[in-house]
């Protein structure tokens, strides 16, 4: 049975394990499988050529570019397993869409991801674990952004999350002590903050940052509420009742900021829902994905430029800590 036939069969009869009526995103998933099957079936002749090319010249490309170079059986399996994954939750579903649209991963990275997915069992947990492990090995390998070294970057985080990160990094005995410390550092002069935090890492594995495309500070609008900042950056809603700390900083000399890719989005324990890879038309940097619901707090939210980089230390801070809330 070739790939197209199998895909049609899936559309016609559903997957063996499926017992419930197809939900909206389940239907979208099947549509995607069908579309992918049709597309791959149309270009078998170029797959071998591309396969050889991707091995000899590593370049940024899409999953489909590399997948098309694989044997039909492997293509079917990869599509099928991504389908299993995307049936689990909106975040997983979005992950599958993002893998399809990502165009800034190197060919070798895709090859490794495909191998890992092929080795995974036919269950979401195993597939997810395979993806995560592969993505972790390739973080911060997207193309460099076009940003000046003097660009002031920004990050928003709750005090509680930051305190827990500091305790996990062993700067404090407990999150509670870290919390007290950060609380006391709010509104302290920048010079003092930089001195005290000079070697303190402000992120764990990597940092996602935004900046002001027109120059200046990323959080220049002091009147913006925490909710709107959270919404425009597409942060988690789970702690949306907590105030946000705003950090503004410069990258150290020689440190490269990069486009955010699926590697950064899906290498963590929690996968990020509000993430879309930058389209291939974007030449300068990525973009945040703002909340897109119809709630009043989300109305008129504008996306912000986005990039990723290695965690910076406190000495790179460019402004004093600022806390904003919704009150």
């Amino acid at each position, binding site marked *: 049975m070739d790939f197209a036939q199998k895909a049609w069969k899936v559309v016609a009869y559903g997957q063996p394990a499926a017992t419930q009526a197809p939900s909206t995103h389940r239907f979208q998933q099947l549509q995607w499988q069908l579309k992918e099957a049709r597309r791959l079936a149309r270009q078998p002749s170029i797959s071998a050529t591309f396969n050889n090319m991707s091995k000899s010249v590593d370049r940024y490309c899409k999953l489909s570019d590399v997948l098309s170079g694989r044997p039909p059986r492997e293509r079917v399996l990869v599509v099928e397993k991504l389908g299993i994954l995307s049936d689990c939750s909106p*975040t997983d579903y979005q992950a599958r869409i993002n893998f399809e649209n990502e165009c800034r991963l190197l060919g070798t990275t895709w090859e490794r991801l495909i191998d890992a997915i092929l080795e995974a069992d036919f269950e979401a947990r195993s597939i997810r674990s395979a993806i995560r492990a592969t993505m972790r090995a390739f973080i911060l390998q997207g193309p460099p952004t076009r940003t000046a070294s003097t660009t002031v970057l920004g990050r928003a985080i709750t005090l509680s999350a930051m305190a827990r990160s500091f305790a996990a990094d062993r700067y404090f005995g407990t999150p509670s002590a870290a919390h*007290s410390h950060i609380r006391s550092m709010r509104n302290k002069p920048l010079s003092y903050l930089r001195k005290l935090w000079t070697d303190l890492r402000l992120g*764990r594995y990597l940092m996602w940052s935004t900046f002001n495309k027109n120059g200046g500070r990323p959080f220049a609008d002091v009147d913006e509420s925490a909710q709107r900042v959270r919404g425009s950056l597409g942060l988690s809603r789970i702690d949306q009742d907590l105030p946000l700390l705003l950090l503004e900083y410069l990258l150290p000399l020689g440190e490269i900021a990069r486009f955010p890719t699926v590697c950064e989005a899906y290498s963590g324990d*929690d996968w990020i829902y509000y993430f879309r890879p930058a389209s291939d038309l974007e030449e300068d940097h990525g973009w945040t994905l703002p909340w897109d619901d119809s709630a009043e707090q989300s109305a008129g939210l504008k996306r912000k430029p986005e990039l990723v980089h290695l965690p910076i230390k406190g000495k790179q801070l460019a402004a004093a800590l600022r806390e904003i809330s919704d009150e």
Partner: protein
Amino acid sequence: MSKPSYSQKGELNRESIERMEPEELRQWIFNRLHGDDPTFGGAPGDQPHYLLVVVYPHLKRTIREDIENILIDFIHEIACDSPTQWIGKAGGELFLMADPILINSPRKNYTIDLLLRIVAAEKFDGAECEELRFRALQALIALDYHPSPNFWRDLYDKHGESYAPLVLEGLARTELSAAFEWLGGVTWAESLERSLLFLMPNLLERYGAGEVKKNLVKHWRNYPESTQSALEELAQFEGFSIEDIAHSHTEETWVDAFLTMANLLNSYLAAYREIKSKSGPESYTEAAVRTIRTLGLIIPNVRSASVGISGDLEGMWESYVESLTSALEYPELAPEAYEQMIGQLPLSEVMELTGAILKRKYLEMSQCNKILRHFYSADETERILNQSPEDNLLDILPSIVAAFSGRLKSYDPATLLIEEDEKVPRDLTSWTSGILREAAGADPLPLSF
């Protein structure tokens, strides 16, 4: 099997957690801590336990208790069964939830027992379990476990600087003074300075500026200059007066100077006879008198020293009293020494001292009378001079030393008034105002040279 549900936007539906059966909840938490709860759209960099910590306070009481019990079961599994699947990051995530989830659990003490078992067990000694052990120690602090200070000090001795923040916080939670005492004695390292500066806001919140300052002052001189400057800067920002610390530091210097002078005088007097036979009649006396007078000048500063000063204050007063009583044996030094002593002692001790001096004929009655009149009324002086003389000066030395020492320690007007009350007939107005003035330290007692 039900599991937490999420909206199309990746929002967690809290009610879906509350609908879960305990076993389902257990499985979900286990998966989550092991990085296998993909359905949640988290923020970049959030730790897996963060979701639970944020959600926990908003859940129903029964579910909160379920979660507490599940976490304790997991810890039991590590401590008593097989820890294999918790070694590494997952175990760390588990222990980081001690605060706020386990801290209010009725089974907190049982949890502490389990954590102690983990910390002590040989099976966790290997490098691969280091993360687990460290996080268990963090959990112990979070649960307000108060062992003996040695528990924390030994950890530092064993693991070194990387444990400095943990050990310092553990000690401070156990006993604030133990933390500062440890800092004052341990070989200094940069990590200690950073740990102290980082922890200070928590200490100030927990114990208040006064208590922290008192402990800071005790060991102030043991900190390197750079640390002192950093602490001064921090104090300035935290709104407590650094002048107080600097002043206390100065006072400690006064005590040191005083002790040095008293010892110097002792040594000088020990060789006094020999020096007297070799030197001219003026020079040997002048040196001793100047030293006694200098001690008298330093006294007000020593007296205003705070109770927080470390060191052997009792020893200092003994040395001082010994010097002055030695000086009493020499006619040319006795008036100076006597005047200085009665200028500071309470009346009861003045009476005893004067009696012993007269008995031994160190001074004439007229000399005593003249000196006493600088401090007491005619009636009081007469009463002092007419009492029954003490037989042995040595017998009263302990009470004199105690008087000096006691007055330094309990240096408040109320205590002094109570102690002195009804002992002496006196001009109440001048007596009371004298004590108050003395206690306030604003106006040193009159000394005539």
